[in-house]
């Protein structure tokens, strides 16, 4: 009789390749990034020396990073707020029965399927005062309308957030829609018999039943916003000044353009911690919600 425990080594052998690959591609880079964050590594200046926590302290003195953190916060909060509100709204529309529903569900995903860099480049032109389609459209209703979207902090930030929503909102809505489709129509019919109108049905039936779905989706969508880089990179290059710079964009600039590897690593570690803390809170909130 073979002892099952004595065969456990086989299981370890079987998962060893995955462990090795994971260790090499995930654990090692994370450890290396943490180590680098304690060094002053400036490749162009040939500097590579231990710096303790000075990279971390510099983050909070660096105006570029402070502006970046500020916009990253605004971007994540505003974008996620509208993702939830408009996403649920769009999902409700897509869940209605009307002619061409299937067609609409298909074409609504087109922006999401396009590469963010392409959308960013198109966005740069779309928001151009002279040649852009946004102002061209507005001018059809408000002749003489002039707005240089990408030169003022507020409007440039609004443009970036709007483009982000335009791209990713449909995907969020489609995923909410999948949750909506699990709600039995019997419940709505029963509520209708009891005198509930559409608004009440939404708040007392639909919303509670899709809430878990929404909260689950909020985790990856928020993390994607936190690591968002390509849209800003191709649309505004973080400008005007650093006003539309996102943290992932700043990390890329520090790491690959300025070659300040140590500083970039400290920023990356900070982002990693923020993401980890956010995910932990979100999971806890979900568990409480379930309870």
């Amino acid at each position: 009789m073979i002892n099952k425990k004595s065969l456990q080594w086989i299981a370890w052998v079987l998962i060893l390749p995955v462990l090795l690959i994971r260790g090499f591609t995930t654990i090692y880079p994370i450890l290396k990034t943490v180590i680098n964050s304690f060094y002053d590594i400036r490749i162009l200046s040939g500097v590579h020396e231990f710096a303790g926590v000075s990279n971390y302290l510099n983050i909070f003195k660096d105006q570029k990073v402070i502006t970046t953190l500020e916009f990253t916060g605004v971007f994540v909060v505003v974008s996620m707020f509208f993702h939830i509100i408009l996403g649920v709204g769009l999902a409700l529309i897509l869940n209605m029965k009307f002619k061409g529903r299937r067609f609409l569900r298909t074409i609504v995903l087109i922006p999401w399927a396009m590469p963010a860099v392409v959308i960013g480049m198109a966005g740069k032109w779309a928001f151009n005062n002279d040649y852009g389609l946004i102002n061209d459209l507005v001018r059809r209703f408000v002749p003489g309308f002039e707005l240089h979207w990408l030169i003022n902090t507020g409007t440039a930030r609004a443009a970036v957030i709007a483009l982000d929503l335009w791209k990713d909102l449909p995907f969020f809505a489609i995923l909410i829609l999948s949750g909506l489709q699990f709600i039995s129509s019997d419940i709505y019919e029963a509520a209708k018999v009891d005198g509930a109108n559409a608004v009440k049905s939404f708040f007392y039936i639909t919303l509670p039943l899709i809430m878990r779905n929404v909260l689950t989706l909020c985790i990856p969508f928020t993390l994607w916003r936190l690591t968002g880089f390509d849209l800003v990179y191709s649309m505004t290059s973080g400008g005007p000044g650093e006003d539309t710079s996102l943290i992932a964009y700043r990390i890329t600039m520090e790491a690959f353009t300025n070659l300040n590897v140590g500083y970039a690593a400290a920023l990356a570690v900070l982002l990693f911690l923020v993401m980890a803390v956010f995910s932990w809170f979100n999971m806890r909130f979900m568990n409480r919600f379930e309870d």
Partner: protein
Amino acid sequence: MKKKLVSILLSAALTGSLLAGCGGADNTAAPAEGGTEAQSDGGAAEDAAAGEGAADDAAAESGSKDGAYDLTLYTINSTDEDFPDWLANVEGATGLKINVIAAPTDSDTRQQKITTILSTGDANVDILEINDEMSASFKNSGWLEGLNDTVMTEDIRGEFPQGYVADMITDKNGQIIGVPGYSGYLAFWVNQQILDEAGITSMDTKEDFVKYLEAASGDGRYGYGGSWEKTYVFNEIAQFVNMFGGDYLDWTNPANREAMEFIHEMVEKGYTPIDQIADKYEQMNPKFNDGKYGSLFMWGLGTDYDKAGMLGADKIHMAMVPQFSDQKYIFTDSWSYVLNTASQNKEAAVKFLQYMASEEGMKASYEAFDRYPARRDVAEKVVPDTDPAKEMYSRYANECVVKGRPMLPQTMEFISAMGTIFQSYVKDEMTLDEFCTKAQEYVETYNQ
């Protein structure tokens, strides 16, 4: 038991195939490691020469392995319609088979990719084209091979623009690290139709320029246009500082302040639009073609204007830079071909570079890409007198103080930081004093 046996066999096969897959990378990893070693040895000629023997062996080995290419070129010109003809010309003349990798068209992406290739000792690319910003950053890094003894030899060295070679592509050991692919000026361009309309016949002085700005601006049109995106505006700030006789690397200089006040005034008076702070060249040039701008500073020979049918003596053309101070000032630039220190194909690479530095190579580039030859003697021979650039380029060379752009080792960081505060200044978010103080701080920070 049978099931278990089959499972173990299948798993072993899977593991074996995975490991075999990993092992396959060994052959390609070896040259890369060699490359890293060569790079850490520095760019000194003797080290490079010592590395060449090994490199040749490796090249021969790789040649016999795939037999495909003698060297790999990382180029910005591959999207040009004449590129295939140019490549055929180079391959025919050198006998080399060249593998071409297209560099990204976006400047940030391109710089990041090239930086990554060079800094990691990637031996897959032998020759790269780099601009002044990259030259300033990389020339003392040891990533680029010195070419004094092989390509930029004494007999031809003197024919290249001397100030440019010394300032931009010579490293701290006196080694020239690149072959300038062309000679370019940050030329002053005007729209003749607007000049005629404004009744301006000459623009020799600052007063003439201001008169033109006044006359040309209004009704959605501006006397001067630019691309003031934070990484592009550097050229124009430096150009105006130069014209006022200032020094871009000394912001205590009163002439710098004067230049900045002048730019600010242009915005205030509506001679130039503030919305161009979002513009790169691809936004600026269509506006110039559409007659929204009366003048601007721009590199190149006007290909974008030509494509729009706007290039010509009666439309958009180059003009002499107005004189704002004691002399006329102009910047020159180039993209240089450089040899990656980690290259395993140095012999072939040197052959390629020798051709690019020769009369035939420069002629081929001029004919294919409209690149004005960097060598003075070649330009004299190759460029026909009918080429409108020839006259103006020769006037620039003779009448202006020609300078390389002021760059610091941390080039892109410096350029971006200066662009950011410039945008704040022209948007009145910062005073002139604050701008100058900050600019001086940046000069000191990034000059380390």
